[in-house]
């Protein structure tokens, strides 16, 4: 299947899967695979290299019979990342970024793998290993060396659902019966479905808060066919793991959400884009899809609705944060580098393969399914009048009860801190690195669309944590994950990282903080997509929120702080 889309690049929806086959077959993608692939798709080798090198789970060199991906997010860093990292190197004999001489183990760092409630965590051949420590690493590696299958050694991922609203007020985490939502569609017209979603004021839960009903309605009005529903299950924002738990506990609800959206906009195909970090859930999701077909909730005349044919397939990602942005995701699904598209058309006008496409987050789709199942009225009865409903929050960091909290909108920061038994909280990061940071001065504020809008991550850090370490971790993350297309984001994050390193060395002057603000502002106004626009938010906000942390002792003098001894250190080696 090939189609012209916006870019002059042709779409190859099969390409990503094809590359995965090669990757899985040999543990890396060989030169001959590139040759074959280039023939099959009729594209040049460099174009393939471009796609492969965009995704960090594709390798062009052997990556070990056992490939270890250790999460280097800030929560992991604070929970013992460095010790675990050293343990892996000691036990396997490989260095990070490399494979050991026998080719048995390959060690790689990776950004958040959605297990922030059980850090430090790693994936070994995409099987999860949680709550790692030195001893556990030794046991795991010993086991693998003895030939114990990874499947037997890996951990069962805990769901850690800590709080659900009492009684009937829960929207997401309540009893689930497959088909309860879709069967309700029978007897409703698509317009009525959209009206019901509109009435519920449901809005996008990926963090952009676009009204879901409006999106569906606009897509329905598009004349072009076929239309597509894409479920965005690529929650790459560090500290977020709500979609993981939703899919792990109620995979069917996600499918029902997709079918509901399909029915409302008149689509026949739904694609669930699953991040590769969640490959361990792939079987479960595929089995659920099969079960839905067997129950005739999917396929021809789905859920017994005459003329409603709806299919769902799963598309696996390959490791990239920016692909969580909807247009980047569409590019990725088309077998391209996951770069965000220029904003000429909305996906609802021209999305996947240039056709009208609704891209919704897992939580949004689950919410939509529940609204159809329970009725908008029940949804409206929870939360606040302007932001009704509940929100699934992933809590992690320095607290005794990290995990999932389904909260009603309007809850105070203080209440959530108390519920998760936060340890001496001082710095709170909302919605991940691209979100914002708050201090206890904001404890009376409420999580809702009108006050603190939260995409899903709530990371708590205690007084004893180094704020600079947090900010450096975030900036390094953006530096790695920028798609590299536009200058302000590609170079800007690199430059800001250098600046923070200077501050870390104790060489900061007041003008350095002014620079961070001004340069951050330039990135905000000039970047091409949300990643670059949001990357400096936290940094700037932190300067305002924690001024005491950034106080500079020395004023601006005529001489700069310059460490001559450090600068000549390298040369001193030649002193004989």
């Amino acid at each position, binding site marked *: 299947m090939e189609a012209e889309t*916006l870019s002059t690049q042709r779409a190859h929806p099969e390409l990503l899967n094809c590359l995965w086959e090669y990757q899985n077959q040999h543990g890396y993608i060989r030169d001959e695979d590139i040759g074959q692939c280039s023939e099959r798709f009729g594209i040049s080798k*460099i174009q393939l*290299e471009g796609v492969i090198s965009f995704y960090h789970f594709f390798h062009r060199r052997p990556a070990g019979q056992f490939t270890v991906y250790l999460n280097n997010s800030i929560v992991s860093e604070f929970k013992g990342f460095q010790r675990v990292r050293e343990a892996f190197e000691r036990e396997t004999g490989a260095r990070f970024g490399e494979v050991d001489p026998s080719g048995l183990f390959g060690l790689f760092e990776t950004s958040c793998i959605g297990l922030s409630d059980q850090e430090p965590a790693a994936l070994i051949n995409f099987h999860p290993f949680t709550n790692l420590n030195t001893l556990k690493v030794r046991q795991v590696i010993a086991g693998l060396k003895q030939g114990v299958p990874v499947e037997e050694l890996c951990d069962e991922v805990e769901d850690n659902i800590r709080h659900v609203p009492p009684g009937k007020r829960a929207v997401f985490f309540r009893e689930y019966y497959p088909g309860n939502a879709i069967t309700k569609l029978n007897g409703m017209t698509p317009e009525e479905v959209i009206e019901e979603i509109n009435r519920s004021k449901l809005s996008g839960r990926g963090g952009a808060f676009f009204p879901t009903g409006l999106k569906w309605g606009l897509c329905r009005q598009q004349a072009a066919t076929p239309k597509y529903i894409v479920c965005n299950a690529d929650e790459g924002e560090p500290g977020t793991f709500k979609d993981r738990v939703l899919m792990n506990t109620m995979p069917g609800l996600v499918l029902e959400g997709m079918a509901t959206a399909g029915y409302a906009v008149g689509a026949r195909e739904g694609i669930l884009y699953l991040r590769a970090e969640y490959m361990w859930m792939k079987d479960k999701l595929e089995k659920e899809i099969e079960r839905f077909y067997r129950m005739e909730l999917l396929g021809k005349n789905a859920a017994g609705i005459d003329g409603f044919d709806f299919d769902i397939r799963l598309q696996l990602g390959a490791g990239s944060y920016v692909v969580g942005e909807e247009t980047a995701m569409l590019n990725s699904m088309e077998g391209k580098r996951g770069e965000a598209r220029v904003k*000429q058309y909305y996906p609802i006008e021209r999305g996947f393969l240039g056709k009208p496409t609704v891209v919704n987050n897992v939580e949004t789709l689950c919410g939509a399914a529940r609204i159809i199942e329970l009725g908008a009225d029940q949804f409206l009865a929870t939360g606040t009048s302007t932001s009704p409903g509940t929100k699934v929050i992933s809590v992690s960091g320095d607290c005794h009860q990290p995990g999932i909290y389904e909260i009603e909108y309007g809850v105070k920061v203080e209440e959530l801190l108390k519920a998760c038994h936060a340890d001496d909280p001082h710095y709170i990061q909302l919605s991940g690195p691209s979100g914002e940071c708050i201090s206890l001065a904001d404890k009376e504020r409420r999580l809702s669309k009108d006050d603190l809008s939260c995409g899903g991550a709530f990371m708590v850090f205690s007084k004893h944590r180094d704020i600079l370490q947090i900010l450096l971790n975030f900036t390094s993350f953006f530096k790695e994950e920028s798609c*590299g297309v536009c200058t302000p984001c590609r170079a800007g994050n690199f430059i800001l990282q250098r*600046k923070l390193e200077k501050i870390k060395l104790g060489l900061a002057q007041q003008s350095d903080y002014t620079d961070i603000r001004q340069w951050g502002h330039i990135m905000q106004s000039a970047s091409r997509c949300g990643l670059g626009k949001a990357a400096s938010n936290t940094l700037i906000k932190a300067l305002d929120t924690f001024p005491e942390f950034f106080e500079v002792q020395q004023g601006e003098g005529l001489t700069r702080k310059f460490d001559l001894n450090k600068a000549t250190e390298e040369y001193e080696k030649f002193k004989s």
Partner: protein
Amino acid sequence: MKNLKAKPKKKQPAKAKAKGDATIKIDGKEIKAREGSNLVQVARENGIFIPSLCYYEHIDPPLGTCRVCICEIDGKPAPACMQKVKNNMEVRVNTPEMEDTRKAIVEMMFAEGNHFCPACEKSGNCSLQHMGYEMGVSISRFPHLFKDRLIDFHPKRMIIEHNRCVKCHRCVEEVLTQDGKRVFSLCNRGNETVVGIDYEEEAKLTQEEALAAMQLCPTGAILVRGQSLAKPFGDRRFDKESVQKEERAKKAVVEAATKAAKEKKVIATISLAGCFGCHMSMLDIDLGFIDLLEVVEFNKSPINDIKKFTRQCDIGLVEGGCCNSENVETLREFRKKCDILVAVGECSIWGGLPAMRNMIPLEECLEEAYLNSITTVAGEHIVPYHEDLPKILDKVYPCNEIVKIDYFIPGCPPNPEHIWKAVKNLLWGDHYSILYSEFKYD
């Protein structure tokens, strides 16, 4: 290649466009244009200069990668190349904020890549360099990143200089083989992003197509072997004059300050990690130098060979950056002894040519120079180290990372007129305006 085929498209009669059906405002000026036409193009046709790098007339949709053309569109910052003309659109190009943002992005490109204009084949034909001049970039506010990048000599006909690539995407979109395959593609991600070339596909290009690719590249990243110096320096596209002639001339005229009787001032100069080229340039005012000596007196300077400061000076001119401990000490002394300190030339501003070593670890540089070089005399395989010798720094530092620099005069070397006009302006408030030809140097 696509751009060859698409050429006729460009030849749309300009007059038909002028009779547009939409009225827009650019910086308050009303302009009629065809609805849906590209804003950068419309501005250009109406004599309004919007800086741009990745924009190329017939790439549709536009790339929007370099972000240099950012303007205020109906109150919001957005790249002009991505805008289709709509009736009643209000565009603000030259607001202080937008001018600064555009300038910052060009500076970012200079800081991110390794651009040594005086050593570049494309100098004078380079759009990035050109944008730098047009926007008056004299120093990058960002620290130079000095990331080690490769030069790809593998392709049969071309050389890809990754140090100079700004990832504009033009070649990725435009350079295709006859059977429609891409010759270039972005590879990797984040700060590791590079534009890779396909050696097999490159070999399929005709010589003409290869030359077109070199011209398409806004910088000197794509070179065709043996063809990159076809036109001599000095006669190249951007060598002679600014594209925004009138405006620039207007801007350059600074109100002359009231002239007081000239009091005699004291000047000190020094060359640190430089080549003395800037000092040669200072002498290049020829007989003017005699006039100069009537109003200034030189203290510590190579010009009169006074080695030590004998008094406090009004102004210090520093050529070169800091590559060893002695440079650092000298510079600190200059800061103490001079009321105004001016960095003269690229080396003192950001490291310049000596900073070409900044991408390579010091150890490797020294071993290459003293131990492994082909001219090393047998038995003398040591790296010099003595307590009396200055210690070599891990990299070459720009002066403003060591001390506060008050003014910067860019160039490699700066034009003599530029140096002395700036000094006279600083010392006595003399009239200061720089012609394009005096500001054009590397």
